[in-house]
């Protein structure tokens, strides 16, 4: 569970069934458990109007559990990038009454929310639940490159190679935490690297 620090650091809730005509779920690995937990309190025919887009990762864990909810549509994707065209298409053709539910890692929630914001959905009307890894998507403020799955503090920018302090400062527009050079004054000063975003 992500701890609250500064105001831009996202906080996540617990998925709950919303009134609406269509329900779109996007989840990665552990996020499936947030959906199956929510299903226990959902009205009987809730998943008749639902679409689940799932990135199971290696082992296809939880696929059977999600299929057992009998959603109107179930779609499995190998990565977020691979489901992006489909997601954009779905949102472009959608009507008011569609509700969005995001569950899983921060990287998945953030990137799906970024697409939803572009489609005109307010971030406060999206249901989110964090499950699984705390690994961060980080943008280097110096070269603007994005590094995925950052688990250490500090972390190395995968684009320009600078050693970055991973801040709690988050951008919904970029769907990334901010990384700032930790040793700009003296590049020979190398603080120890700890794995803290597990």
């Amino acid at each position, binding site marked *: 569970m992500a701890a609250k620090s500064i105001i831009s650091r996202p906080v996540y809730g617990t998925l709950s069934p*919303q*009134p*609406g*005509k*269509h329900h779109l779920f996007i989840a990665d690995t552990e996020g499936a458990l947030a959906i199956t937990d929510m299903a226990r309190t959902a009205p009987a025919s809730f998943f008749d109007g639902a679409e689940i887009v799932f990135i199971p990762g290696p082992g296809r864990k939880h696929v059977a559990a999600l299929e057992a909810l009998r959603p109107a549509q179930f779609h499995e994707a190998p990565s977020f990038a691979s489901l992006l065209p489909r997601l954009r298409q779905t*949102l*472009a053709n*959608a*009507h*008011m*009454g*569609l*509700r969005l539910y995001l569950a899983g890692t921060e990287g998945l929630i953030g990137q799906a929310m970024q697409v939803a914001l572009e*489609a*005109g*959905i*307010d971030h*406060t*009307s999206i249901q989110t639940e964090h499950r699984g890894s705390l690994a961060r998507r980080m943008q280097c403020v110096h070269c603007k490159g994005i590094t995925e799955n950052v688990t250490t503090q500090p972390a190395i920018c995968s684009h320009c190679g600078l050693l970055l302090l991973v801040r709690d400062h988050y951008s919904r527009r970029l769907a990334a935490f901010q990384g700032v050079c930790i040793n700009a004054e003296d590049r020979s000063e190398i603080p120890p690297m700890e794995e803290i975003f597990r």
Partner: protein
Amino acid sequence: MSTGTTKLDVVVSDVVPVNDLVTRFHFRRRDGELLPTFSGGAHVVVEMRDGERTRLNPYSLMGSPLNTSEYTISVRRDDVGRGGSLFMHRSVKPGLEMVISYPVNLFSLDLRAKKHLMLAGGIGITPFMAQTAQLAAEGGNFELHYTCRTASLGTYADVLRERYDRRVRLYHDDRDERIELDRLLSSQPLGTHLYVCGPSGMIGWVRDRAASLGWPAETVHFEHFAAPQPGAPFDVELAVSGKTIRVDEQQSLLEAIEAAGVDPPYLCRGGVCGQCETNVISHDGKFIHNDHWLSEEEHRSCNKIMPCVSRFEGRSLVLER
């Protein structure tokens, strides 16, 4: 004291009857300068000096926000109301010097919306006059559904049809034309925001249906233009000022407090903005809450009252004012 707003010294530059019930008033600044900028949905509070009595009524600005050489409001005559609209209709003539507040917007467009869906009922059309003008100038995407009793009472329906053609859809009660609300709400593209202004029954209906059909609360905007309801006179003790006042049948509690020389904060005078929220020190009787600001729980707690629209019946009421 209107919070965060100063007053504007204006002169009535024109008075135009629009139909049997509605008259339009034009205001210009007495010093000839431009009026302050406003955005569609804003209102001003008009001070009406009617002999001994001063009324302060809010009215939506209905002109284009692009034109600040004058402000225009449209006032529907209410023969059984508290007298503000009758005063405007009978006593306000071109050349009269009046005082109005700076504009305040509690019903603004959310310009992040992909589309703006507007629902107006009766005189609730006025804020949409300004909003549609603002959006049309920016090439904004909007659609207006306007319900009126009869064609002849469809205030500005002709103007709107001429300006925006098929983007305006009219419904006449006397022809039994009704908005197919569920179908309308279910066929809007994602990213649409909904705006509703009209009688409170209509606002309640639209908000209910929108919520059931999955419109998030952030996408539903509404403005009540309910005037304070008259009621039985009651006495109030103002503990901070050390005064005891009587609220007349046709007077709001806020107006009675002001008439006693106490200057509480206010903004909308319609029970929505929260500025005049007042703590109750003690009471023996029943509150008649008419506001849309306090929660149901706060209404039940009897610890707070919105004096602009709410009243009291009973033996004693002491306010922290």
